[in-house]
């Protein structure tokens, strides 16, 4: 039965309130939790639930997403049969029209059921019990909820999905969500409440808040466990080096970093350098950012490849973290 589900990831979400973090990349490809991208969570959940065929509908700019996922090898999806499929889409089209354009993929698939999900939900869910409920309760559509709210994750039969795609002009539905939300439809709609840690990332505020929540042990351990690992693109960074001057507490640190300064309550991605005498507090520092010496940084999200020159002082607030764009250079003059 496990094999019989198809995964569809709708990665056409507009940048919206993700602001600077989604200028160059699809929200699905936003770096998260030190070494992952947002899409890793739903994709790993699918793979861990036995899904072997995943269709991703990205829209422009999708270069970083495709670069990240590649052949799907790191998720064990580089298969001769099934595997990972990309269907780049036009943004102006709706979900069902985009699927209609690629109807041959659905026609060719032998799976009986489809799991459809958005791309920016952070959780570690086993979808198998949800599918069992879907089958046992003879549902037409199943919606996975968290604290009573929709997570925009649905299970339906491939047969019904094809009907929704073909009849979209008559029904007026633009997405699977429309069918679920239609009060007048004759569908049996079921719900499956997920009780574990789950956050949907739709704005920079969500992103910052959820990232900081990972520093709480009980939440972190709900997201990461050895039995349902979150997979990501493999990099060959050495272990992180801490010098005699470093002081790091209450933080999540990825590999390949060189930490000479002070870090507290922060998330530090791969290959970041934090110079002597700098203090980094309540910050998110993405991969390969270089922070010089004697900087004071609080409530800042640094995107990739930022250079912070010696002595810079940058402060955001817990409600409104400062976002430093990918590849920018922060000098003392600019920040004072």
């Amino acid at each position, binding site marked *: 039965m496990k094999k019989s589900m198809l995964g569809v990831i709708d990665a056409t979400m507009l940048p919206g309130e993700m602001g600077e973090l989604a200028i160059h990349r699809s929200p699905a490809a936003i770096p998260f939790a030190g070494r992952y991208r947002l899409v890793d969570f739903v994709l790993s959940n699918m793979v861990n639930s036995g899904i072997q065929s995943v269709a991703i509908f990205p829209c422009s700019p999708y270069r970083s997403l495709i670069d990240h996922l590649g052949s799907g090898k790191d998720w064990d999806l580089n298969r001769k049969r099934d595997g990972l499929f990309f269907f780049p889409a036009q943004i102006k089209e709706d979900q069902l029209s985009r699927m209609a354009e690629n109807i041959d993929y659905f026609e060719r698939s032998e799976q009986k059921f489809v799991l459809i999900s958005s791309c920016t939900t952070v959780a570690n869910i086993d979808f198998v019990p949800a599918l069992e409920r879907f089958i046992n309760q003879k549902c037409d559509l199943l919606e996975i909820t968290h604290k009573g709210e929709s997570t925009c994750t649905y299970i339906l039969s491939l047969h019904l999905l094809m009907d929704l795609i073909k009849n979209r002009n008559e029904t007026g539905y633009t997405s699977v969500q429309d069918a679920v939300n239609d009060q007048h439809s004759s569908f049996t709609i079921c719900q499956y409440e997920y009780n574990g840690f789950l956050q949907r990332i739709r704005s920079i505020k969500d992103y910052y808040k959820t990232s900081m929540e990972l520093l709480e042990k009980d939440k972190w351990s709900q997201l990461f466990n050895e039995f349902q690992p979150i997979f990501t693109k493999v990099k060959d960074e050495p272990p992180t080096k*801490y010098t005699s001057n470093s002081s790091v507490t209450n933080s999540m640190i990825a590999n390949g970093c060189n930490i000479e300064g002070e870090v507290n309550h922060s998330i530090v991605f791969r290959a970041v350098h934090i110079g002597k005498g700098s203090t980094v507090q309540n910050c998110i520092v993405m991969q390969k950012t270089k922070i010089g010496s004697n900087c004071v940084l609080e409530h800042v999200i640094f995107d990739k490849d930022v250079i912070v020159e010696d002595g810079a002082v940058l402060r955001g607030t817990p409600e409104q973290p400062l976002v430093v764009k990918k590849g920018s250079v922060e000098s003392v003059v600019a920040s004072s």
Partner: protein
Amino acid sequence: MAKQKCVAMLLAGGKGSRLKELTEKLAKPAVPFGGKYRIIDFPLSNCANSGIHTVGVLTQYQPLVLNSYIGIGSAWDLDRRTGGVTVLPPYSESSEVKWYSGTASAIYQNLNYISQYDPEYVLILSGDHIYKMNYDTMLDFHIEKQADVTISVIEVPWDEASRFGIMNTDEHYNVTRFDEKPEKPESNLASMGIYIFKWSVLRDYLEMDENNPDSSNDFGKDVIPAMLADELKLVAYPFQGYWKDVGTVKSLWEANMDLLDQEQDLNMFEHSWRIYSVNPNQPPQILGTEAIVKHSLVNEGCVIDGEINHSVMFQGVEVGPNAVVKDCVVMPNARIGRGSSLERVIIMGDLEVPDHTVIHNDSDEILLITEAFLAEYTQERTKMEEA
């Protein structure tokens, strides 16, 4: 099969018995090193970075971990359409099962593997050393010198020279004599166990060596001396840089500490010469509110709530609150209980160190903490508490 200019043969069958319990269940080349790697990552990454993409790995002793680690070589980008990594275990012929009795016989039994690539040169490597080296530069040197054999050498301290195979050379680096572990060394150029042979020469000498009943089938003891006696052109290739044999518990510990103290010599952060390894896929490391981490290397998956000083922590290690780890190497997935204090020891992987364990090793040797050691320690502690 497509022709390859140079085929590498990596001798990875060593038992490494001086590594004690570390090699009880795995071959020496599979021993973990540097917080994330295994010893064999160094020669394999050197091959990949040197552009040598055809590597035969000869395994014999406890090959399970090593074989599954190497897989099809994708971690080192050595999963190639032609060549790539091939694991070469001993095999049986119609008449008998042939174990690899020495380094030379191991290569001899795989002459067919080498022949199928019709190479001009064969590079012989061992899986026992930590170093970064460009084999292609050595090959250029070999070609330029028009040598039959080129042997990579390194200057060792004179007082240690009697532990190595020593090359005596003339001023053009032509090898004039080879002394295996000489009592009174006349040179301090030690063989690094890295050879480049002209393929045709190697093939002939391996066949001669195999047919010689008095030979111990070893490169250093038999093949090289025979070539010298026949006045072939043997050249020493002087290597400069970090190189260490990690054959004992102490030298393994020292090499780990060198990553902390001699980073200019053995820099794992160098982008142009990455050391690749199989990724354990663990979440980033977590440092708790009371954590103190100084002068250390820490790999992904670690959860640190105690104090770590001048130590190397492999993936998935947990250090409980108020625990102190100093001058230690902690192997993958070990757990160190709260309030423990450990100094100058290597902790075996997957080991559970109970709360309040105190082991301060002040001897010159390095203590290897195993399950048996801990059982004895706990028993003695209980006795002491009862008394």
